[in-house]
């Protein structure tokens, strides 16, 4: 029975169906977002400290960065 492969070890190739150009007047590369936009569409790879819950830590980040909302990707609780 084939063993399940971790998502980060899954090899993917790109299959090209068609080619086209992109218009530079609309949208932009994520790296070229304005600072405010970069934050608003950003993710922080945070090393959570022991003690507070994941929710509390996310709330602290929200307060530090003065954002309206934050989320977190998977609870790390005792």
């Amino acid at each position, binding site marked *: 029975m084939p063993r399940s492969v971790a998502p980060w070890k899954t090899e993917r190739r790109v299959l090209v169906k068609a080619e086209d150009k992109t218009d530079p007047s609309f949208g932009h590369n*994520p790296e070229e977002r304005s600072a405010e936009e970069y934050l608003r569409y950003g993710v922080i790879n945070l090393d*959570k400290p022991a003690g507070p819950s994941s929710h509390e830590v996310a709330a602290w980040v929200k307060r530090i960065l003065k954002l309206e909302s934050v989320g977190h990707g998977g609870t790390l*609780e005792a």
Partner: protein
Amino acid sequence: MTGVLPITLADATKVVQALLYSGKEYVCVMKLHGDVEVEQIKKVLGEFEDVIYQRPPLRASVKRQLRTRRIYYLDFLEKDGRNVLFRVGCEGGTYIRKLCYDVGEVLGSGAHMQELRRTRAGPFVEPESVILHDVAYWFMQWQERKDANVLKRFVQPMEQALALVPKIIIRDSAVDAVCHGASLTAPGVLSLETGIKAGLVVAVFSLKGEAIALGKAATASEQILQMEHGIVASTERVLMPRGTYPKRWKTGGNKNE
């Protein structure tokens, strides 16, 4: 418990769903309740690789039904007396505490989870993580210097959270329709990654590398490549604001031309 916790900021919170399915890795200290030989421990750990059954604990906020979870790898690292150090790669929603308990049952000695540290959450890994102090410090530096490169010290674009989700890249003319929730149809597709299967989550991207939406594939990569028309993926979660790209889809003629 410590370790990698991806924090999605403001509008990026919409990608959280993709992270839940991208897998996790932990390093764990399991405390045995009796003395067991290393060879026996390694053997039993090996038996827990691949698919296991778990029922979420009382304190979890999910439905408490028996469900399967994949253990991608379970590597013995060290033993010190009754403490066993191991690394485990697993599907999201796997309870390592329960895994330790079950390993203890099979070993006969009993065991519990002593300490847990998450070393990976989807594409986010421990060596690249920052601590709260860094966040506060660099944010303050940015406010003083107003240099966007300072932000990049501790914030990643939300596209990074989608690094492990199979991608479909579409034409500019197809973008706005998807931003309005329309399903992605074949003519709009330029390229796609292998490994897509019907029902799986896919990430729809623009040629500029912007995440447009999270979708659910209607069929597999090989079929999508051959299709001339028809739905390729339903749009489940729009990530890009409407109007970022111009409307091209209500002009009557060819949809997603």
